[in-house]
């Protein structure tokens, strides 16, 4: 490794514990909520010079939430297993009174007047929000290098990226400064950084978690989900996050219950049917990542799961379909940034309307965002709609059909999360197409609206963590997380790097 490692508990004594362990500690009053929040904030701030995981620290919100939760706990009212636990939130999730920039200059200074549903729910669960996390600008990127606030860095090797777009979230959890975090996943933005940073990230079924207050990138693909040390913490977070929200017309009356997940052990794998798409292991996959994933497959088989290879011919068509749909929706969703109602406007007086809008957008958006807005508007524009946008929707229909037939035979589909480990900083920005192709394992899941968890499966030849993902049927989030907990009950990859318990 070329950079330094700042993994684990270099920032404080509480880094040794998972979110659920910390929850148990505060709820049994071994630790005060404020003390824990203060420690997390101090650790997060201390780490930021190395990993730049945070854009904003929300000390005031954290302290007032901590006091409120402490008094609830003192009166015997424990709202959830995560009550009292610090959490950090990706900077595209609106929190009232706290800067929400999406890591873009165009939202410089924007302070939402309302809370995202997930922020309300986290507060309802008694968690304490310590800050807003770095990300690729508007969640467009796979490295967190497109952030207007500078790249986040990988705690395992600070010369490498943490992945993206929820790179700040994965880095903060890996560095042990946030027990768990919220990311968003449009085409892999929770799972790929989780894999690159050796942590666990869950992309819920589309519709399982409300998007109200999530700054939209690709509306038909976006989901908010947790990044944490392990699948148990992800399950606890899902319990807090899921549930119907009338403000989001695509949210479903789905309630995640973590009890079956938290009880799971290796026995939960017995008889579980795993399918392995053959095409996912054929080309473009780093050999050491490939062998780690295959080792995991062997282990699952040893533990009593059935494992079977199957053809998945749509595999290579998912990336183009995804980039067309996501970019088209992005072009639409990001049209609203004109510098008039919020964000950074073209301050110069005397500009005409058109001039002011073009100026605000040309100066406010970074290169990758502009590229995707252009790609999206191209795919939607007169003359190209049928050949690109409509074709991509048809590909999505076919892809979901392939998944549906696979899930008649399998309970879970398993693939690597990404074809490589974390890239070096500056390595991947010059070839956008190559960067897009790096999303080959994650984007099909978003197109099909399915749940998937990425979990560590070992360390590759370069010493960096690698991840694999379990993909499940729609609304079988419990199933994939249960399998992940079972796998983690017999493996230790997810515990590597953290300091020993105090």
């Amino acid at each position, binding site marked *: 490794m070329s950079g330094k490692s700042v993994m684990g508990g270099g920032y404080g004594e509480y880094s040794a514990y998972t979110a659920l362990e910390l929850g148990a500690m505060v709820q049994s009053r071994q630790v005060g909520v404020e003390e824990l929040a203060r420690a997390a904030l101090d650790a997060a701030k201390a780490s930021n010079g190395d990993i730049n995981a945070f854009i904003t620290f929300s000390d005031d919100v954290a302290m007032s939430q901590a006091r409120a939760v402490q008094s609830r706990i003192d009166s015997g009212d424990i709202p959830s297993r995560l009550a009292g636990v610090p959490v950090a939130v990706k900077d595209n999730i609106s929190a009232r009174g706290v800067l929400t920039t999406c890591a873009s200059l165009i939202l410089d*200074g*924007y*302070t939402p*007047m309302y809370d995202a549903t997930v922020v309300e729910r986290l507060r309802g669960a008694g968690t304490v929000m310590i800050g807003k996390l770095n990300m690729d600008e508007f969640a467009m990127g796979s490295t967190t290098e497109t952030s207007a606030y500078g790249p986040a860095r990988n705690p395992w090797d600070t010369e490498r990226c943490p992945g993206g777009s929820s790179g700040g979230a994965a880095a903060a959890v890996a560095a042990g400064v946030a027990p768990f975090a919220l990311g968003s996943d449009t085409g892999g933005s929770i799972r790929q950084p989780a894999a690159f940073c050796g942590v666990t990230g869950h992309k819920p079924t*589309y*519709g399982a978690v409300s998007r109200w207050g999530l700054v939209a990138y690709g509306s*038909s693909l976006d989901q908010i989900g947790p990044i944490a040390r392990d699948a148990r913490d992800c399950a606890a977070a899902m319990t807090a996050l899921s549930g119907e929200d*009338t403000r989001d*017309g*695509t949210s*479903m009356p789905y309630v995640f219950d973590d009890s079956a997940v938290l009880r799971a052990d290796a026995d939960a794998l017995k008889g579980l049917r795993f399918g392995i798409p053959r095409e996912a292991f054929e080309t473009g996959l780093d050999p050491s990542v490939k062998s780690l994933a295959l080792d995991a497959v062997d282990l699952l088989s040893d533990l009593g799961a059935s494992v079977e290879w199957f053809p998945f011919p749509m595999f290579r*068509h998912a990336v*183009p*379909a995804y*980039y067309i749909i996501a970019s088209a929706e992005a*072009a639409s969703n990001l*049209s609203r940034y*004109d*510098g*008039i*109602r*919020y*964000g*950074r*406007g073209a301050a110069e007086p005397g*500009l*005409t*309307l058109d*001039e*002011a*809008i*073009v*100026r605000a*957008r*040309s100066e406010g*958006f970074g290169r990758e965002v*502009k*590229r995707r*807005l*252009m*790609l999206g*508007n*191209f795919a939607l*524009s007169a003359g190209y709609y049928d*050949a690109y946008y*409509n*074709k991509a*929707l*048809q*590909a*999505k*229909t*076919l892809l*979901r059909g392939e998944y549906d037939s696979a899930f008649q035979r399998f309970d879970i589909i398993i693939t690597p999360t990404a074809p490589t480990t974390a890239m070096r900083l500056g390595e991947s920005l010059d070839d*956008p*197409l190559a960067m*897009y192709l790096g999303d080959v394992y994650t984007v099909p899941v978003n*197109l*099909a*609206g399915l749940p998937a968890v990425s979990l560590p499966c070992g360390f590759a030849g370069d010493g960096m963590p690698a991840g694999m993902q379990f993909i499940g049927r729609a609304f079988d989030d419990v199933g994939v997380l249960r399998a992940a907990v079972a796998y983690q009950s017999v493996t230790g990859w997810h515990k590597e790097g953290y300091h020993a318990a105090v």
Partner: protein
Amino acid sequence: MKLTDDITLRVAKLSGIRLTEPETAAMTRDLGAIVGYFDILNELDTAGVEPRAHILPLVNRWREDVVTPSSDRDELIANAPARRDGYVAAPKTFEGGGSS
């Protein structure tokens, strides 16, 4: 599909983005490579395949016609770079009236 600078400039206009000459050339190159690769979608036989915009089987998601309180105006427009008397101020429009 071959992308040209003309198409790039037209799409930039639709996107509300101005590109310098070198940016235009780079964008034509990058988008050209991406769009060229995307032509692999043409391998798919999509005849008669429904273009599925919504992945969830949801229909008729509606609310009842009930008035809920509006936001506090000062909070609502607090983020606008220019405001005047409770309005959001924008560069002047020539046509007057509205867009629709």
